[in-house]
């Protein structure tokens, strides 16, 4: 019987929660901030693992990142992923979403037969949510996002039914394979690392590194040269200083006092 091959794209990002704020200088302290697997991508890994539990098959994780990302790949192998590919080469540096998605699409093509391509909903460091849609475009595949679960997978008939979560409703889609799926954030809380899987990550070396030697992509389409995006300006939102007003007294008076102050500050109309 045919088993599904699932590719999951993950991104290695700075842990924005560990980035601390220096109250004195008002700047962000980035030094020593460890990188992590984009948390929303772990939902995609989890959904892939659940799918494999039900239908069998193989899960291959792909990330385009500097060599340090191997740690993140070991993390998801520790969760149970079968193989990992680290797409890493100096020539990919400076990629915007277009160049990133192009490189990822070509990587996926090179993997061979793939039935499902999973991505996280968005990243915590750039949050464009461009990548999955762009990868789908490059590969000329359908793309469904905010997906919560795989309801039915029929490889023989070459189709899948997915459940999509929106603000006020659920939707079910039946689509032809292969398909690119953006997994809804918080929809599939990741399982913990398993000892034997983590051991496999360390002892069996299931991580391959692909450079542009393997991929052979046109230098005009990758890295800085392949990135038409121009960042013209970035500003930080100014911090609103706290008013540091504390009311002491009974609740009834306090409510009145609070409303009065909120009106004065034009928080309430």
């Amino acid at each position: 019987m045919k088993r599904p091959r699932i590719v999951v794209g993950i991104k290695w990002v700075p842990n924005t929660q560990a980035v601390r704020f220096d109250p004195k200088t008002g700047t962000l302290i980035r030094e020593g901030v460890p990188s992590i697997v984009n948390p929303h991508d772990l939902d995609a890994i989890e959904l892939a693992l659940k799918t494999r539990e039900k239908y069998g098959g193989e899960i291959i994780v792909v990330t385009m990142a500097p060599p340090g990302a191997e740690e993140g790949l070991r993390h998801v192998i520790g969760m149970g992923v079968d193989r990992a590919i680290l797409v890493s080469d100096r020539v990919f540096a400076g990629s915007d979403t277009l160049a990133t998605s192009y490189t990822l699409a070509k990587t996926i093509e090179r993997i061979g037969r793939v039935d499902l391509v999973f991505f996280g909903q968005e990243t915590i460091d750039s949050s464009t949510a461009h990548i999955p849609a762009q990868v789908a475009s490059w590969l000329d595949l359908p793309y469904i996002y905010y997906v919560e679960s795989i309801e039915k997978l029929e490889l023989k008939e070459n189709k899948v039914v997915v459940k999509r979560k929106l603000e006020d409703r659920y939707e079910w889609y039946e689509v032809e394979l292969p398909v690119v799926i953006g997994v809804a954030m918080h929809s599939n809380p990741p399982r913990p690392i398993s000892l034997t899987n983590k051991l496999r990550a360390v002892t069996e070396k299931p991580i391959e590194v692909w450079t542009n030697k393997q991929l052979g992509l046109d230098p005009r389409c990758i890295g800085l040269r392949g990135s038409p995006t121009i960042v013209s300006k970035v500003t930080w939102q100014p911090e609103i200083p706290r008013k540091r007003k504390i009311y002491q007294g009974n609740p009834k008076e306090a409510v009145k006092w609070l409303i009065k102050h909120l009106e004065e500050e034009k928080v309430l109309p």
Partner: protein
Amino acid sequence: MATKFDAIVVGAGPAGATAAYKLAEAGIKTLLVERGRGRGSKQVFGGRIYVTPVREVFPDVEKTAPIHRWVKREKISILHNSRILSLEYESPEKHSFTTYLTEFTSWIVDKAINAGAVYVDEVRVDSIVEEDGRITGIEAGGERIEASIVIDAEGVNRLLLEKLGLAERLSPEEVALGAKEVIKVGADKINERFGLEEDSGLAWLLVGEPTDYLPGGAFIYTNRDSVSIGVVVYLATAVKKAREEIYRLVEKLRLHPQLRQYWEDGDIIEYSAHLTIESGRRFMPRKLATSGLIVVGDAAGLLLNTGYTFRGVDYAVYSGYLAAEAAKKAFNLGDFSEETLRENYEKKLLGSFIAKDLRNHTGVEQIMHEVEFFEKYPVVAIDTARKLFELGYETPRIQEALRSSLKTHHINLLSFLYKMFKMVRKL
């Protein structure tokens, strides 16, 4: 799972990493399991390591370890009422060094990996498996891995030993809480502000104001280009008497008007907190080995707090080394029984400088619990010094200055002298 190991070490602190390295070096198939991410991410210490025992285990320590500065100046100070009374000591010898524990542990973990140990991070061991009165392996997330011998190096919060019935649950009386900040200042500024040479460092212990007059101590260590500052308070007294959270104490230390000049305009690059053992001797488990198991480092109660310095990391390294030696013997004999392991590990450890230190310093621990000692004596000392040094018309004799300070604080001279005598004897 096909992989089998001869030895499993739980916890990659200085104790566990050393044990794993020495085992792997001897060709024993070793697994080192750590619950934190990466290397050393879960470990916290004040700032200095005594080199002599470490050198015996790692002869290359001076050449290859991540040494920040050699401690050539020791300083002990009482702070109160905008006054500082200090004792300072300087020596050209290299007896101890400052570093980041994370870096130091990584250095040992790397050695272990290079020697052939398998290192697995991000996995918390749930239990050490006991079958028919014998330790047979570990369990994590419902998965088991077997080994002939397990080395428990889980540190102060020894949940695994508790499960095995080899240690009691932690009680507040047994532990102290430490909190610390690392402030990046720059090497040149450190040299200039503390008056230090390129690679020489300062270990500074403070009582009084910085600990809010609670039993414990505050510390300042100079690293290569940063300063570690922190506070350690005894949990039992802190719970009863503390007026502020411990992190507030560290913040107050950082903002102290007479101290902040040293790290002015530096960046806080790390904040951490950790438990530590209060009395190593009382904390020691009934036995340090059972059939198939050896306990090392903090988990074995190997920590000394003399009131003016900490020793834990060098003890951890040394005990890890002794454990590996005992395990090697056990592999040679093919005998992992409790008798053999206790004979070759526990007996060696109890006969070593570590156990001698712990026995020798039990008295200090009692002093560390006398609230008076931290609440009133720093104040008396500063008051006396003030009377002696800040002269107006009259010039009091030392005795007069002391007497009148004691009187102001309602302390009886005799009881004071008796306590001082007792203290000197215990120190």
